[in-house]
């Protein structure tokens, strides 16, 4: 029920005095109300829930998290090898 899906804003317009946008979800386009993210620009990603954009997707943050997660095991290995360097030396 509380599902929100990320989509790319492709067009801005107004309908009955309400800020709206066309949002692309992997090829499927739907209308979304932009009243709660009035400063959104075309090309930005937003999370959409029941036809309302509720949060902006922070691209930098998403990339940072992804990089961090992709390296999580290496991080662990580095920390481990730092903790016991003596054992490695013959």
């Amino acid at each position, binding site marked *: *029920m*509380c*599902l*929100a*899906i*990320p989509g*790319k804003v492709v067009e801005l317009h107004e309908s*009955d*005095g*309400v800020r709206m946008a066309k949002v692309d*979800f*992997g090829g499927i386009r*739907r*209308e*979304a*109300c932009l*009243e*709660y*993210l*009035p400063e959104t620009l075309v090309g930005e*990603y937003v*999370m959409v*829930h*029941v*036809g*309302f954009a*509720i*949060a*902006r*997707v*922070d691209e930098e*943050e*998403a990339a940072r*998290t*992804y990089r961090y*997660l*992709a390296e*999580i*095991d290496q991080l*662990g290995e580095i920390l481990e090898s730092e903790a016991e360097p003596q054992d490695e030396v013959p």
Partner: protein
Amino acid sequence: MKYLDEYRDQRIANKIIDEIKKTITRPWVIMEVCGGQTHTIVKYGLDRLLPPQVELVHGPGCPVCVTPLDMIDRAHAIARRPDVIFCSFGDMLRVPGSHGDLFQVKAEGGQVRVVYSPLECLNIAHANPDKKVVFFAIGFETTAPANAMSVWQAKRQGITNFSVLVSHVIVPPSITGILQSPNNRVQGFLGPGHVCAIMGWREYEPIAARYRVPIVVTGFEPVDLLEGTLMTIRQLEQGRAEVENQYARAITRDGNTEAQNMISRVFRIGDRNWRGIGIIPKSGYRLNHEFRDYDAERIFEVENINTLEPEICISGQILRGLKKPVDCPAFGSKCTPQTPLGATMVSAEGACAAYYSYGRHVGEQLVEVQTAAAVRAS
């Protein structure tokens, strides 16, 4: 699709699971608050991939599930009226009341329409001036701004044949209720990501501090849920009890203030009855006095409704993290998604329905196979 596929990456999921195995030294009970999170966990079998010391219990965050039966019956009574077009999110259609579901109301001649956005109801009201358009406004804080906007716009645009049947609940009082219970087992929470998209996480900070419980605001994809679990376990192992944000790509501490403002313009906080749990003080939204002309409960006098939940159902204990669906004697036999007996079976996001859909009611072996298949499919 961008920002979805990355967070379903099996390689990364496995790395986080390894990291959890390295971090954990003793058993912990962690609750995911949201029904959407429960659904992902059971669909991908994440709870079975985690080391056995982690027990995930399923929280009260499925608004369809906790909508009380008398409210469903009230909705059906209104939807049956010949002068009404009844609009609802699709999730509510299959929820049985005392006399069938909304599909049945429709089959018997009621005008029932599924809407994607509550704003669609205003167009329907415009196009049908001789009808009364009623919207079943349910949900948590995530959905409240959308529903509030429909009422706000109706008033602004002078639409008079539109009203809302409000059954809104909010998360913090339900978490506090679980933590205050003398038999509480929950030691850490995966916080409700999209609720916090609206509300931020300030209001969770006093809860974390007062009850000494870590709360990690978490997203809805498999990698999000695993990372949220890892962050919670790290806090537990280190004796910390803070609010942390796993879902930083979409959530900020303050949330969406425009949306919060609209909620407080249209709604006020009031007591709410939660199906399976009972009345929780100050746990939901009601329409502000200013919008009483849009209150379907006021417009359509529905006589007192008496409902009775089956005694066998333990959904109240499941929603508090005390029991699992498989502990219920009716699970998968008398109670299935086609013939639900209680709250947690009525929606796909309810714990009982999720367990059933992904084969947890049959033998272990089949379940293992399905789990593996679900992960591969991810």
